[in-house]
């Protein structure tokens, strides 16, 4: 299916009360946009809106001031109903300089609000952004509401009394702007003030001037004469289940899920990795958590990393390795060794734009094929995917459970979007987490490394250091009976069948597939996996609210798939499968169930927009209407 985009209702900001809003803070790498966004997010969470955030870093490490490729942005989508994406289009764009304006304008809704620092629209900066004339003056922004303030000047005035250098004084620009945006949405500044006090505990004059700037920005909104149509907006509180919440990125959730998994399984983790964007943060997070049963090892490359993890698993810990596309490709041989020698291993793939080096800082779902099939020989392994940032926590625990219970490598798919995006997470009670304690085999009576569980088909995990357990394993085919090398043809057939049966059998140990929104049968099912969740979910909700018979099915277990998935899908007249690749998961659905599903494919390094999926639903729906369906 060709990808079209449906315009969502753009009534935003016309009323004083709005259901949801997308705000994007954009500026130079040095402008502190991430900090601004984070503080606004905290205030918004406290206010009681549901929300989702996405920091958008430039590909370059540190670009020259004012360069378009150096723009750093932070987007937040918040509202009164459940929010599952960082938003299709921007309602409010905060642009700290011309480069920030030019690179983000395309995504602003018609009539959207632009807050700009006119003080940064100098000839030099305009040239760097390749503006031929000043957009604040040439009428090119007429279709928007422009709120142009010389923030430079305002800030210098606001912090004058603190005696900062000109440079340090200007550094408070972001807080001034934040103050203004907080006024716009009626947020409380106190957490930000606390944060500033803590952060600059040793530099009170910096803390105080930032606080002054924040307050001044807020006051500006309250007192200045504002352009028509700019006023305080009310965004009603969301109905949120009671509990303690925090904001969490996919990376954090994944790391903590692994830690929780190690506690539940009662084993040590060795996390061995080699830096690569956007996977490195997982290494960083865990390197900081060695007070738990985690050790981290930065290896010389990805091959060494997976191998060290396999070695750790042989020694009785759980080896975990992590990377993105190119690095995962290098790990194939090591993963296959773990599969052949039947050792647990968790492989986390934070997918990014491919092929080859591709688009390292962008998101994509194009490693599905490699996850399932990227190894030589018949080497099945279970593959599971996280759908949201917070889902990373549960999926990480599940990876630990499956790999240790079935003595198999498990591939966990995340992606660049999930890794960096943050959502509010209702913090679970630790004693509510599932337990699945693992034990190492230690009975020397007739011990052989090939002893296996009849139920799981997993072989025993007998670790070095245990008397009587001495044994040899390896990657050459092993005898089913003894575990020793065997070149026997019938044995190879038996072991091949066994490896397949073991992984297939996991289907009996995972939940049946449920429909996550809509009915269990009907006209159209939209089937997703991974980070397409948010956009699909909103699109299906909107379609249902329009009265369409559409359901959303989100698959976590990609291999093996849930036992009932084929039957469930056959209850729908049509199935569409949005993927951020050229159609990889759909191939499995078609071949397994012989269902003529349609793919909705987007490979632009960016998540789906709700409108794109909604458009695809409408299109398919119309087509179905024309030819009539089963139901």
């Amino acid at each position, binding site marked *: 299916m060709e990808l079209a985009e449906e315009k969502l209702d753009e009534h935003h900001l016309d009323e004083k009360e709005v259901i949801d809003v997308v705000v994007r803070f954009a500026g130079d790498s040095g402008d502190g946009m991430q900090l601004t966004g984070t503080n606004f997010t905290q205030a918004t969470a406290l206010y009681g809106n549901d929300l989702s955030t996405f920091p958008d870093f430039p590909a370059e490490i540190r670009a020259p001031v004012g360069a378009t490729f150096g723009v750093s942005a932070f987007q937040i989508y918040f509202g009164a109903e459940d929010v599952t994406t960082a938003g299709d289009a921007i309602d409010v764009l905060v642009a700290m300089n011309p480069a920030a304006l030019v690179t983000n304008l395309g995504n602003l809704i018609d009539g959207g609000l632009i807050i700009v620092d006119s003080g940064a629209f100098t000839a030099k900066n305009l040239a760097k952004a390749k503006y031929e004339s000043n957009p604040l003056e040439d009428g090119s922004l007429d279709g928007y509401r422009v709120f142009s303030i010389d923030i430079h000047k305002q800030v210098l005035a606001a912090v004058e009394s603190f005696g900062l250098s000109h440079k340090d004084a200007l550094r408070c620009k972001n807080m001034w702007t934040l103050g203004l945006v907080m006024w716009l949405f009626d947020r409380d500044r106190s957490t930000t003030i606390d944060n500033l006090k803590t952060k600059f505990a040793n530099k009170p004059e910096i803390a105080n001037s930032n606080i002054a700037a924040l307050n001044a920005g807020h006051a500006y909104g309250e007192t200045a004469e504002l352009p028509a149509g700019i006023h305080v907006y009310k965004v009603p509180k969301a109905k949120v289940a009671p509990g303690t919440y925090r904001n969490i990125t996919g990376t954090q959730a994944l790391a903590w899920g692994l830690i929780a998994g190690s506690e539940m399984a009662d084993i040590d983790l060795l996390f061995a990795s080699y830096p690569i964007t956007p996977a490195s943060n997982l290494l960083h997070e865990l390197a900081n958590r060695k007070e738990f049963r985690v050790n981290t090892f930065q290896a010389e490359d990805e091959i060494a990393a997976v191998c060290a993890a*396999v*070695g750790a698993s042989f020694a009785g810990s759980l080896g975990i390795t992590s990377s993105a596309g190119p690095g995962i490709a290098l790990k194939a041989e090591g993963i296959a060794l773990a599969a052949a020698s039947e050792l647990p291993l968790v492989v986390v793939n934070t997918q990014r734009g491919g092929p080859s080096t591709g688009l390292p800082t962008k998101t994509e779902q194009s490693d599905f094929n490699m996850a399932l099939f990227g190894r030589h020989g018949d080497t099945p392994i279970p593959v599971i995917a996280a759908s949201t940032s917070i889902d990373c926590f549960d999926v990480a625990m599940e990876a630990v459970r499956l790999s240790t219970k079935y003595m198999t490598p498990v591939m966990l798919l995340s992606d660049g979007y999930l890794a960096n995006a943050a959502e509010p997470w209702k913090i679970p009670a630790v004693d509510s987490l599932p337990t699945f304690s693992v034990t190492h085999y230690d009975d020397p009576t007739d011990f052989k490394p090939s002893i296996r569980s009849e139920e799981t088909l997993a072989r025993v995990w007998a670790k070095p250091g245990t008397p009587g357990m001495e044994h040899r394993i390896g990657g050459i085919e092993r005898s089913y009976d003894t575990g020793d090398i065997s070149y026997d043809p019938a044995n190879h057939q038996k072991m091949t069948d066994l490896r397949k049966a073991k992984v297939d059998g996991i289907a009996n140990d995972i939940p049946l597939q449920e429909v996550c929104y809509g009915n269990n049968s009907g006209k159209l099912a939209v089937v997703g996996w991974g980070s397409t969740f948010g956009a699909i979910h909103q699109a299906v909700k909107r379609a249902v609210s329009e009265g369409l018979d559409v359901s959303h099915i989100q698959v976590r277990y990609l291999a093996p798939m849930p036992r009932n998935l084929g039957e469930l899908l056959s209850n729908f007249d049509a199935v569409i499968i949005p993927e951020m690749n050229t159609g990889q998961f759909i191939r499995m659905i078609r071949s397994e169930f012989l269902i003529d599903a349609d793919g909705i494919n987007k490979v632009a390094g960016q998540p789906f927009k709700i409108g794109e999926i909604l458009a695809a639903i409408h299109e398919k729906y119309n087509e179905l209407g024309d030819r009539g369906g089963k139901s």
Partner: protein
Amino acid sequence: MNQALPTLTLKDFASDQEVRWCPGCGDYAILKTIQKLMPDLETPKENQVFVSGIGCSSRFPYYMNTFGFHTIHGRAPAIATGVKLANPELDVWVITGDGDGFSIGGNHMMHVLRRNVNLQILLFNNEIYGLTKGQYSPTSQVGTRSPSSPTGSIDSPLSPCQVAMGSGGTFIARSIDTEAKHLTSVVKRGHAHDGAAFIEILQNCPIYNDGIFEQVKDKKIAADFRVEVEHGEPIIFGKEKEKGIALNREKLELEVIAVAGNEDSILIHNETNKIQAQMLAAMGGEDFPVAVGVLYQEEKSSFVSDTQSQLQQARDKQASLEALLNSGHTWNVD
């Protein structure tokens, strides 16, 4: 649980698997030597782990009645690092070949050596790829005719001990497959070393590279072509120990001289001197004997102990999952 260890013998370290090297292969002798010295190491058998890559030599673990992991080509050092990090109590051995350890696996080798990971690394150097039927390897002499170099190889060979020195290795030694006594003493010293112990073993492959080490092995002539170095002892060789190695300190070059009358000029082996060790490692060729023995040793804190102390430090904090999940900024919704 561990009371006095039962006295074990060579047999306790032989597994039930039929040994499958070619008749006459140097690997047999090495296997026997290692099996025989194991009981002396005073590490419980269940704490011995042999990790290998792929190659004839890498079959070794199957024949040891200890824990063993026959892994994939070139990666044994990395896998062994994982084993050792997961359980520092274990005695971890890496068994590798010149192809496994220095062709595909050269990088991992370099990095375990510079990290000083506590492993005993036994490199079976037969200067050929045995298992894949005799192609020249990165240690093969220039001009080696092999199926993949029918008119003679042109690549200059690597010297494993020199690479190990350049990588910052802290224990570097060389021995010979069939010299059980010498090999035993070198391996025991490597085992006692706190860090990465790198031991190159010159190994004959009678099928694809027969006799390549004949000069240093043949009882009749070996005395002239090899020198056994021993810390603190003069570096002398020859049937009657009549020749010695001297250092021309002006030119910084080694020389072979007669011992008689030159006693004072003979170089005394100092295994802690890196420069001298580099010169000894490079010795060989037409004019010099090959040095065997412990060429270099350096006391340096090891990767595993440094890791452990960092871990220990971190774990002094009381870790609570509950606290982690609730750390940082949280808010309540009632």
